[in-house]
């Protein structure tokens, strides 16, 4: 380890001489540190931001635009009944510890994820799988219990990566995958280092070394970028500083889209909020552009339903609930809810904390008082998400294509609509693209008309990078910092 490190330093010293060569190392800033490095046993986005595609790979993978690309499987066949997928695996792939990759590893990984005692945070991705069988070392057959339109999409998630049984137990601290980079070391609380995997099956990445630095404080992040301690900050935590980076030729500001629909969630168990007039009033009280300007300094796209604007099936429904305080007041009067007081629980991210203050001010305009409580994530999960002990909360739902949450039983906002459930059930078994589009748009309209929650805006991905870096993902279809295509231009 030390020897390797010294060699690395020597190489670094050689290549770091000015104008000799392009830089081949990068320091990437992240707001949150991953708690551990096993994406199959933990939900933290930070785990994926480090490991996705860099260390671990799945059968399929997301491209920068959200399309599904071949991963460890270079091709696949689907049976006519839509129940059996046959994956053809790549040849000559090996894990970082030298273990060869084969169909058995796929069987192991998928079986582990759906087992009784699985601790996979997205276990529902695997719910449709009936059996997984290795036909031969390079062929795997997956049988589903019912056709699933999104199966290949599901297999591209970070939670569905393939691991080796030999190293699975220690992946939390010493991840061993098949990706283009391998794990070097992790200084907890500070940084995590990767180096190029010389035995990578695909095209060798341009970078030789990559360091992720964990900087949670927004002003520290700003300082680190400005001082050149960090080369890129793909999810920069302080949108207010972006204008300055934009004005500085040393930096590129990368503004892209995410899958994060940011909503003002309402608890339908609260008798006042069970009344659609109150919910509609709240929706009219909200001024989306003020929230985007005030909280996100202009970064974000207003939405009128729970759907990503960059998706082809998106419908712009913002006109359904325009900013109209008078209408809001009238609706509240009609519902007999003047003088309503609601508890607004806010998780840590800026969009929630700042957005919450603006929302509170806007609700006050129409006569709704709010009591703001700032919660940490753990408390938010326990109290709001699991305990349903809240009236209002602001949260960004970052999973892709997650409009289905409005059809879930006993989901935290406690919305219960038979119509919505019917739409989603039909969608599940529909594979015709036009029919799917129609269903998805019906779903968008349904929840917008029901004013289930107040839809605020689509979270933007705002990153900052050294102007000489190219190949960073602009958008975030999934949380990831895929470094395989990143290179220094000069």
């Amino acid at each position, binding site marked *: 380890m030390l020897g390797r490190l010294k060699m690395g330093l020597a190489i670094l010293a050689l290549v770091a001489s000015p104008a000799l060569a392009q830089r081949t190392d990068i320091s990437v800033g992240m707001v949150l540190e991953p708690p551990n490095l096993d994406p199959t046993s933990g939900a933290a986005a930070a785990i994926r931001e480090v490991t996705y595609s860099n260390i671990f790979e799945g059968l399929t993978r997301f491209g920068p635009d959200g399309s599904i690309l071949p991963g460890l499987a270079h091709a696949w066949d689907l049976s006519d009944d839509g129940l059996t997928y046959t994956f053809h695996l790549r040849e000559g792939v090996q894990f970082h510890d030298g273990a060869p990759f084969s169909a058995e590893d796929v069987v192991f990984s998928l079986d582990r994820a759906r087992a009784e005692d699985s601790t996979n945070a997205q276990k529902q991705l695997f719910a449709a799988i009936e059996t997984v069988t290795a036909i031969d070392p390079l062929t795997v057959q997956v049988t589903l219990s019912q056709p699933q339109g999104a199966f290949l999409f599901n297999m591209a998630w970070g939670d569905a990566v393939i691991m080796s049984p030999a190293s699975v137990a220690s992946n939390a601290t010493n991840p061993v995958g098949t990706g283009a980079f391998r794990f070097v070391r992790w200084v907890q609380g500070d940084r995590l280092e990767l180096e190029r995997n010389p035995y990578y099956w695909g095209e060798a990445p341009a970078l030789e070394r990559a360091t992720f630095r964990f900087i949670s404080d927004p002003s520290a992040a700003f300082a680190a970028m400005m001082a050149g301690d960090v080369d890129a900050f793909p999810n920069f935590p302080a949108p207010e500083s972006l204008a300055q980076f934009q004005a500085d030729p040393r930096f590129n500001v990368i503004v892209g889209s995410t899958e994060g629909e940011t909503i003002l969630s309402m608890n339908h168990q609260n008798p006042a909020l069970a009344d659609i007039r109150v919910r509609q009033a709240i929706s009219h009280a909200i001024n989306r552009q003020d929230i985007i300007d005030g909280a996100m300094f202009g970064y974000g796209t207003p939405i009128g339903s729970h759907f990503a604007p960059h998706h082809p099936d998106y419908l712009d429904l913002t006109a359904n609930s325009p900013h109209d305080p008078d209408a809001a007041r009238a609706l509240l009067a009609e519902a007999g809810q003047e003088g309503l007081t609601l508890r607004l629980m806010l998780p840590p991210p800026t969009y929630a904390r*700042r957005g919450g203050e*603006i929302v509170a001010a806007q609700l006050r305009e129409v006569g709704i008082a709010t009591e703001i409580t700032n919660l940490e994530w753990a408390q938010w999960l326990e109290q709001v998400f699991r305990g349903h002990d809240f009236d209002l909360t602001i949260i960004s739902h970052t999973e892709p294509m997650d409009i289905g949450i409005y059809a879930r039983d006993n989901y935290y906002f406690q919305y219960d609509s038979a119509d919505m459930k019917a739409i989603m059930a039909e969608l599940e078994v529909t594979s015709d693209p036009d029919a799917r589009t129609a269903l998805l748009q019906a779903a968008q309209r349904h929840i917008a008309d029901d004013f289930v929650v107040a839809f605020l805006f689509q979270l933007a991905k705002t990153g900052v990078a050294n102007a000489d870096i190219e190949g960073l993902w602009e958008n975030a279809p999934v949380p990831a910092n895929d470094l395989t295509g990143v290179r220094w231009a000069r």
Partner: protein
Amino acid sequence: MRRAPLTLLAGAALTGVFALAALVSLLWTPFDVTAMNIGARLQAPNAQHWFGTDHFGRDVLSMIMVGARISIAVAVVAVGMGMVLGVPLGLLAAANRGGLLDEVIMRGNDLIFAFPALVIAILITAVFGPSAVNAIIAIGIFNTPVFARVARGGALSLWTLDYIRAAEVSGKGKLRISAEHILPNIANLLIVQGTIQFSLGILAEAALSYVGLGAQPPMPSWGRMLAEAQTMISFAPHLAILPGLAIVLTVLGLNLMGDGLRDSLDPKLRRAR
């Protein structure tokens, strides 16, 4: 000796300005402190907004005035709590000096001192949620042993005096003596310590609300104003500088006042000057 009234005056004047601002804010502020005007955000100080506006377009002067109220209220109540709990403990320990109760109280004190204060504050807010009340509790807990120690120290030296003997000979019990003779005579010490703790309380409240554990929005507080301003310091420096100055000047005023008070209340120190 001649400097004492000057520091006292300067300190009282500084503190008075902020106390006055806090009082006035109860009745009137230049602007509604919670009213947002996103269009008018991040204005530098100008004729209309003397201290400029913040990222939500709120008036910074109004926020600083209300923030003074929060800071002072939290610090006063926390110091009061420390006094109410700590002074009787200290008196009790001194009355039983050398005894088991004394030992238990003093060891308990040491133990509280041994806990890292900010960490405990974070734990308290993790249990009860962040709020001004919990900030008060956290600061108050750490004020308690301070006052216990000061009260005990002052009381111990008094317990050796003959008028305490005389009171004992007059059949007075420890508690009665502590209340009648000891407490009034350590009042000076407690007032001086109270001023110091008050200023520390302001700093502690600022630190707690800076990390988001103090008063919750929309109530403005100096610490949170600083935290929010931090990322904007390079293009809206007034947001970071003005609340910071408010903290510095209030604490400075209180410290000067504490020094002045000590000098004028403690004849021993007055002689030493």
